[in-house]
């Protein structure tokens, strides 16, 4: 079938011995930002094909929890933390749970080979996917927060703070999700870790902390999503303590940087075995 004999091609390069030519020119190295943009765009487009049903599930789950808690909580600070917890739960579901599953499956099926044989900085693959999953959470989180505020009669005035809460909590949780997915030796373990993380965010984030025993409160303090919940809950008051809000968001940002760094390291490790 091949119409070009190899001898013809060899004669065209004859007279230039391989050794004399030395190292051939390498293809360009892809820079971080364009690569990140390309990965982000590709991942975002996957929502249209694959992720829509689960994004609905994430939102409905949180709205269901709000309706359920309506009978238990009677306004005040408890209502604030329930609304904030449900809104951030959407982030935990998508960024932590679904991303852990995605990377777990990609690693197990050999899909990482595709990226590993392209000259892409590892950070671009991890950050692009994490950013896309954080973006998936935007509609669900906003809908849940608005619905919760209306249901519990909370002011919508400071909901703009979601513009900071979603990316920062998203960074922290998607970093954890990516790290879990890439470090887990088997895809089932990645799924398990993702589910456990989400369950923790559900139990520790949505239920008001004041009624919890000391040990659970400590666990709550260790979970990064808690700081997203706290930051959002504080803004429902008439005069929020903006210093504390910033502090909570800074914790999210710090965890985000650290966990994304770990995830990038885990990607590098998973890609070359």
């Amino acid at each position, binding site marked *: *079938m091949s119409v070009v004999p190899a001898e013809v091609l060899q004669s065209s390069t004859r007279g230039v011995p391989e050794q004399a030519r030395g*190292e051939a020119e390498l*293809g360009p190295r892809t820079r971080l930002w364009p690569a990140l943009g390309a990965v982000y765009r590709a991942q975002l487009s996957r929502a249209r094909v694959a992720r829509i049903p689960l994004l609905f599930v994430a939102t409905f789950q949180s709205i269901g929890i709000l309706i359920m808690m309506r009978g238990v909580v009677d306004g005040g600070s408890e209502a604030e933390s329930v609304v904030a917890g449900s809104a951030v739960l959407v982030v935990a579901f998508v960024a932590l749970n679904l991303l852990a599953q995605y990377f777990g499956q990609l690693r197990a099926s050999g899909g990482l080979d595709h990226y590993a044989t392209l000259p892409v900085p590892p950070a671009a693959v991890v950050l692009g996917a994490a950013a896309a999953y954080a973006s998936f959470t935007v509609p669900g989180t906003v809908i849940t927060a608005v619905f919760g505020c209306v249901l519990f009669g909370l002011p919508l005035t400071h909901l703009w703070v979601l513009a900071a809460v979603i990316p920062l909590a998203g960074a922290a949780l998607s970093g954890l999700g990516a790290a879990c997915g890439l470090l887990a030796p088997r895809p089932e373990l990645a799924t398990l870790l993702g589910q456990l993380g989400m369950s923790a965010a559900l139990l520790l984030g949505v239920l008001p902390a004041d009624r919890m025993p000391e040990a659970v409160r400590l666990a709550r303090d260790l979970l990064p999503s808690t700081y997203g919940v706290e930051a959002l809950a504080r803004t429902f008051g008439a005069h929020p303590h903006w210093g504390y809000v910033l502090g909570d968001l800074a914790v999210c940002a710090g965890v985000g940087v650290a966990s994304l760094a770990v995830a990038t390291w885990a990607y590098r490790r998973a890609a070359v075995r």
Partner: protein
Amino acid sequence: MCAVRGLTKTYPAVRARRGAPGTPAVRATDDVRLDIRRGEIFGLLGPNGAGKSTLVRQLTGLMRPDSGSVEILGHDIVRHPERAARILAYLGQESTALDELTVSLAAETTGRLRGLDARRARAERDAVLDELGLTPIAGRPLKKLSGGQRRLACFATALVGERPLLVLDEPTTGMDPVARRAVWSAVDRRRAERGTTVLLVTHNVIEAETVLDRVAVLDQGRVIACDTPAGLKEQVAGEVRVELVWREKAPLDVPEVAALRDRATESGRRWTLRLAPEEARTVVATVTGGAAFAALDDFTLATPSLEDVYLALGGAARQGLVKA
């Protein structure tokens, strides 16, 4: 352009655990030595588990060998595995990273990640999709396509962002003849215009014989032969292959047939014999006349293929190379 010396990789033994028996250490590639020349289509042929994929993973920088060296276009890939991605394009067997993208976006994204700027990535995407006849399905996600179409779309991503070396792991699996022809004419065009080199892992003996310039036959991690397909076949030129298919069972009451039994490889109703031309003529005369003919369903007489070469070289357990 690609020199491999003493490449060895051993998978460590796995200790038995509850419910899972242990496996001994496996030497997946054993002192492999290869030289691939610029502009040729070089094939790796071997049965499942021969070490083809392990070898390819080491050549593409996806796996570190235990010892040995890989040099591609003057670059030491063992020491700098990250350079492999800037020299070669790899088409693996898995498409999970691309499955949920449209054909068009998969090609464009891969081009971007191969370092093209947005405009060139789009231009090359359009050119490649057009060349392979994928334009009509450019807007469909890969996972909604048939196996052959998906494979062709993955092949398209390997072509966007030109590379001097293409490493293709069973590129035409599941493709219809039209798609297959599109693949080989795209490869030929790149060879003629740019001297692109192709390393092809294949299972398909017929394809191997028609497209490859040279082929290395792998068996249990070792290269047991390396030559042109014609050169390899010369090694068994003195033999022809006779296949006999019996209606129900072989007529062993015919003495000539009973005498052949020891020399035949039996597989159900099928007997495969490798014989000198003279002998083959006698066998065919015997089975097509007299009592044996009544029991005969079908027979074929063929010149040797790479499959026969593999068996003649003493391939593992004489179980055959692959199903052609």
